[in-house]
């Protein structure tokens, strides 16, 4: 039990927690400035998420893709790469899954599995392109992965229009039932909330994330290359191959997220006029989660719950949905500017240190 307490009073845990509180305070101030009641707003936010089974299930649905993209960004980060392209990889995952789901006829389960694998691979390859360009040509992955987001979106639109969208419509055909991954029994229990196999898969991915990085030979190499490419080269590792590998695995996580989103939630893919945004939020989730698997799951929960609960805020307290973006942005700001948080926390941390002696 002591250990549990220790974990929760660790600085790495306290700082994000405090950042969240500060973010909520800033959000409250913004609401006050706008003439709204922040207490009522936050209360209705919580009620919206936890008030009934259906909404709780829907909040889970909102959280799931953020776990995937958070893992994608964090994995790259752990290997010294900044994958801003989780968005594009997510889109490629959606595209791959919807293509297999619509265009192929396979037995149940197998169909879903194949669609998920294809989606994941599409995401992996998409990220791998950025990795390859860095390894072979020295182009910075931030530039290429941002560009690949747009290329990915328009490429997906093109494929949709050319092969999957019936004439005169704006979205693809529905994937075959055999490819759908809804958790039917749970969904019934949760009043029809769109819960799907992606959620347990995301949690498994968090475990896999940990195992790859900290238990395997591959992970050892990836981390070494990320932390010190010169020493890795000296030690006989191939820096370039590891960069491609790291991006590929990172993209797999994002692609999986995209695949599960289409097969589990919408069952179709609409022609996009804007990015879905999960990839970008993944950066924030990875940041607030400290690039650790548990942190990412918790971070995704926070962000997912906040954005889902925002609807409740609007309904009960009249607070515009956009305000929740202020809260989220403030939280990110305080996590990124952890110097400020540490400064504010100083008295508490100093006291603990004294006791620790």
């Amino acid at each position: 039990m002591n250990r549990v307490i220790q974990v929760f009073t660790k600085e790495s845990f306290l700082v994000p927690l405090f950042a969240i509180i500060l973010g909520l305070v800033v959000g409250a101030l913004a609401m006050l400035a706008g003439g709204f009641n922040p207490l009522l707003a936050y209360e209705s936010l919580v009620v919206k998420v936890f008030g009934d089974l259906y909404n709780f299930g829907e909040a889970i649905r909102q959280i799931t893709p953020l776990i995937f993209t958070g893992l994608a960004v964090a994995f790259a980060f752990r290997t010294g790469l900044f994958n801003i392209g989780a968005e594009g990889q997510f889109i490629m995952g959606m595209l791959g899954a919807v293509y297999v789901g619509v265009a192929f006829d396979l037995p149940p389960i197998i169909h879903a599995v194949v669609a998920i694998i294809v989606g994941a691979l599409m995401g992996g390859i998409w990220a791998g392109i950025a990795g390859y360009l860095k390894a072979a040509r020295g182009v910075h992955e931030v530039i290429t992965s941002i560009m690949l987001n747009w290329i990915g979106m328009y490429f997906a639109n093109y494929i949709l229009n050319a092969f999957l969208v019936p004439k005169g419509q704006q979205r693809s055909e529905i994937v075959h039932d055999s490819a759908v991954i809804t958790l039917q029994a749970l969904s019934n229990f949760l009043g029809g909330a769109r819960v799907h196999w992606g959620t347990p898969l995301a949690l498994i991915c968090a475990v896999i994330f940990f195992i790859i990085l900290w238990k395997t030979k591959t992970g050892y190499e990836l981390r070494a290359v990320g932390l010190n490419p010169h020493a890795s080269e000296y030690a006989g590792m191939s820096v370039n191959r590891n960069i491609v590998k790291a991006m590929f695995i990172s993209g797999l996580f994002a692609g999986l997220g995209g695949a599960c989103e289409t097969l589990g939630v919408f069952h179709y893919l609409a022609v996009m006029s804007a990015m879905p945004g999960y990839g970008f939020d993944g950066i924030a989730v990875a940041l607030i989660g400290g690039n650790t698997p548990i942190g990412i799951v918790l971070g995704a929960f926070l962000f997912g719950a906040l954005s889902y609960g925002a609807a409740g805020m609007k309904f009960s307290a009249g607070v515009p949905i956009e305000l929740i973006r202020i809260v989220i942005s403030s939280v990110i700001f305080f996590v990124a500017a952890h110097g400020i948080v540490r400064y504010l926390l100083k008295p508490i941390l100093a006291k603990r240190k004294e006791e620790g002696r």
Partner: protein
Amino acid sequence: MNLLSTVKTVVEMRGITKRFAGIVANDNINLVVKKGEIHALLGENGAGKSTLMNILFGLYQPDEGQILINEKPVQISSPNVANELGIGMVHQHFMLVEPFTVTENIILGNEPKKGLTIDIRKAQEEVRQLSLKYGLKVDPEAKIEDISVGMQQRVEILKTLYRGADILIFDEPTAVLTPQEIQELIQIMRNLVNEGKTIILITHKLKEIMAVCNSVTIIRRGKVIDSVAVKETNPDDLAAKMVGREVNFRIDKKPSEPKEVILAVENVTAVGNRGVDALKGISFEIRAGEILGIAGVEGNGQSELIEALTGLRKVKEGRILLSGKEITNQTPRTISESGLSHIPEDRHKRGLVLDFTMSENMVLETYFHPDFNKNGFLDFKAIDRHAAKLIEEFDVRTPSIHTPARALSGGNQQKAIIAREINKDPDLLIAAQPTRGLDVGAIEFIHRRLVEQRDKGKAVLLISLELDEVMNVADRIAVIYEGQIVGIVNPKETSEQELGLMMSGGKRTEGGGTVE
């Protein structure tokens, strides 16, 4: 000596104590520095020298004690206050803006203005005047990224002078310099003192203290051990005080018994970083049971030679044979697995992954061996056992095997690398600058390990810029000049003068003399 006592005291630190979480970095330290002297602060890595000077420069606040500047008590709450009091610091790691010119760096934060713009011409003139006055030759218009490390250091010195410093703190200034640059720096320090400046020199190099300092304060584990005039002491005495025991400078070693050829380098040519050939048909060989030292001025192809031998740089022409097997242009891993170990010249860049734990660092080149790698999963219990064994055996002082390498002192980091490399039981051990920046205790340890390898019948290649080191440790010395070996000499039959001449391009004749 009586003369000194009448001279004004410019810096006095009384009873300074500074604690960091768990350790006492400075324990009731007293330091008295007289005007116009060069005062050395001697101590091993981690003894508390830098902490003390950071307190004097206002970067840290002492927990106890008092500071007097020019016999007046002061509170140095920040480096700005230190500047106002005439204290300047030349840091070990330079704080310069690389794309800026020398002048721009010097005036940074203190720019002379003409209306709304910087009066760059006036600034350049001032810099020129200052450099003339103290014999610091620098081009005020050159960009920092284009000038040598020695020049960059002069810019740092000028920066403090420009801000009107009278008391200059030098933090390990020679660690990054070549022997020539060290000589020049010593001259600069003398000029500064002649012009009435006072210098505090943080160092662990006894030779420098003997050469240039007036007095020396020795610090060990946060406490002042002694404060003496340099005239009244000698290197052996200083070393013993610094380390706390007798130190053996001379390495006791029996004559080498060279056996079969382990490494043969035949006419190797390789392109350097600047795009021209850095190695121009270099040839030499090393036998089992001997240490070959490579002496030379920095930048004559030493780094490229190491990289060519270890597979980190492409060889354009020529062959490299290790125990008779060709390793030319093989991958670093193949070469490493063929029986070559390498203590890299830059331990932070190549030698360690600083954010890895010690345990992880100890298997950097061997993690894929079946001992540690089970079907793609690493056996961290075995890795930990391995690390614990090596750390014990090589006396690496680390709080735990799970401490990040970054947290260790330079000496202990180097010991860890040496442990890892020797443990691979290589036929050839390449030691590049193995003692750079280390204190005498660690140097002694490392030299003994190199000789031990030799005595076990292994070949050792020692590449060093320190002539003393090469002459002490090596059995044969090859002198490298502009990418070629210009001569091989026996350390017992040569002198520093002869080596110095060869290092600057003079060739040795068969008879033993030198010709140009």
